[in-house]
């Protein structure tokens, strides 16, 4: 538009950056707070200290929570990625009115409020004896995360030429071979992105976790939830930093791994 140097434009630009700072800065306050030398929540003034990190990594409770969260997030990411990728390929190839309705149905866990998912899981998990177990958490998180994989893999498939798949099949390759040698390599960035999103979704999931895990399984977000409600100990700030660092590392990794591959660049642009 015209008038980029006008007053209004400058105000708008400044306003937009203010909103962006409002978005990012408060979320990162955990970092300075985690470095405070005091025993209460505060920003370090004269000196910094790593005592709360020492606390975090020497506490059996926090360590076991971090470990449990990692195991569950990896398990859920693997399960969601395998099932979601296969499903996305199937739906992409079938592509009828009916299969598109199935796709909409499979996206429901992303749309239905987590609190309702939590109620649903809770009742079934009681009956199946899956409450408070690794398996129960992994399955629940995988069901919630599979739609993410479905979306990213479908986006990658949209850029993939179906003729390549037909050529492979016509040349006599069976479906498993075609999947492994032709389709998977071409949509790898989409699969990878889906896996990372699934991992992050499980890694910081709290609402369903509150309902289906109580004692034996106590994930990092679950322990932070308790810590936040007590709201005094800066160890929670250190845990928050660990939570963010793992999330951002996973994202960065997926960006780096898919860099330079054309399909990934296209998916990212849209």
């Amino acid at each position, binding site marked *: 538009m015209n008038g980029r140097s006008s007053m209004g434009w400058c105000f708008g630009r400044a*306003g937009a950056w203010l909103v962006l700072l409002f978005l990012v800065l408060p979320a990162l306050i955990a970092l300075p707070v985690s470095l405070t030398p005091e025993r209460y929540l505060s920003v370090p003034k004269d000196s910094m200290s790593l005592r709360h990190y020492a606390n975090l990594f020497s506490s059996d409770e926090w360590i076991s929570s971090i470990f449990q969260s990692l195991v569950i997030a990896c398990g859920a990411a693997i399960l969601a990625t395998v099932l979601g990728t296969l499903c996305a390929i*199937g739906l992409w190839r079938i592509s009828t009115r009916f299969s598109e309705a199935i796709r909409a149905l499979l996206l429901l866990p992303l749309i239905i*409020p987590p609190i309702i998912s939590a109620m649903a899981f809770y009742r079934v998990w009681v009956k199946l004896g899956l409450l408070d177990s690794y398996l129960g958490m992994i399955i629940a998180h995988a*069901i919630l995360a599979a739609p993410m994989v479905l979306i990213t893999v479908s986006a990658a498939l949209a850029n993939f030429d179906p003729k390549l798949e037909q050529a492979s099949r016509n040349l006599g390759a069976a479906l498993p071979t075609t999947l492994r040698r032709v389709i998977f390599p071409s949509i790898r960035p989409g699969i990878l992105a889906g896996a990372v999103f699934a991992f992050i979704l499980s890694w*910081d999931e709290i609402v369903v976790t509150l309902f289906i895990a109580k004692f034996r399984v106590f994930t990092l977000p679950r322990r932070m939830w308790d810590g936040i409600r007590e709201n005094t100990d800066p160890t929670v700030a250190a845990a928050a930093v660990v*939570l963010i660092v793992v999330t951002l590392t996973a994202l960065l990794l997926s960006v780096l791994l898919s860099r330079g591959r054309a399909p990934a660049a296209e*998916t990212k642009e849209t």
Partner: protein
Amino acid sequence: MRLNNYWLLVAPLLLLVMALYAWPVINILWLSVTEPQAGLQNYEKLFASSSLARILWTTLRVCLLTTFGAVLAGYLVAYMMAHLASGERSWMLTFVLVSFWVSVLVRAFAWLTLLGRNGLLNGALISSGLTDEPITFVRNELGVLIGMIHYMIPYAVLPLLANMQGLDGRVMSASRSLGAGPLVTFRRIYLPLTMPGIFAASILVFVISLGFYVTPAILGGGRVLMAAEYISVQVLVTLQWGTASMLATLMLGGVLALMFTLSRFMKLSEVFGAKA
């Protein structure tokens, strides 16, 4: 015939979701008319109980205010992103995405640390002499609104940006060269053209707010009771599945109706796909 093979790829996830997700959710809906006994008595409570009415009203009010705030702020950001040079735009997008991916729990904790009674902001205000008594920013509706608008702004920016980037800039240039000032061009041309984006962003933000649990529970401090928190109390503490499933049914009905409306004019995968 060969297509049957492909249903084998779809089947594992489909069966898992049907058996362990869709069916249990339907069961919850069913509970609302069968627990504790068959009939509509759970729905009658809506008219009989003033506390339920208050919770619904709080939920609706907070969601509407959140939608308004998040879409307004998101519009400004998306507008600037759509019209700035690509270097600055990608920096802005990075900010939006970082905020998008930071855990909701961490953000609620951050707001509590900043705005709490003994929080950093109150500490700064008191030591600078601007106020003697700490100001209550959180454990009230203000705190919930700050936290929820903060969470929802990225969800508003992404559909708005998609809409604005699809516009033809020549329309605005034509308006300017025909003598309309920037404000008139914005109000008469740009704003109407971005209405679909505003509509999509509003529905998306409203729907996510409707079932929001973490932020109201932490920043409301028990004083701002919204539907999701009330459901969790009914299920985990008082074991009133009837009331809980009735509220869940209302919530789900609202969410699905709104998402269906949204899907009429915008592909859902595009709205969510913008995550990447």
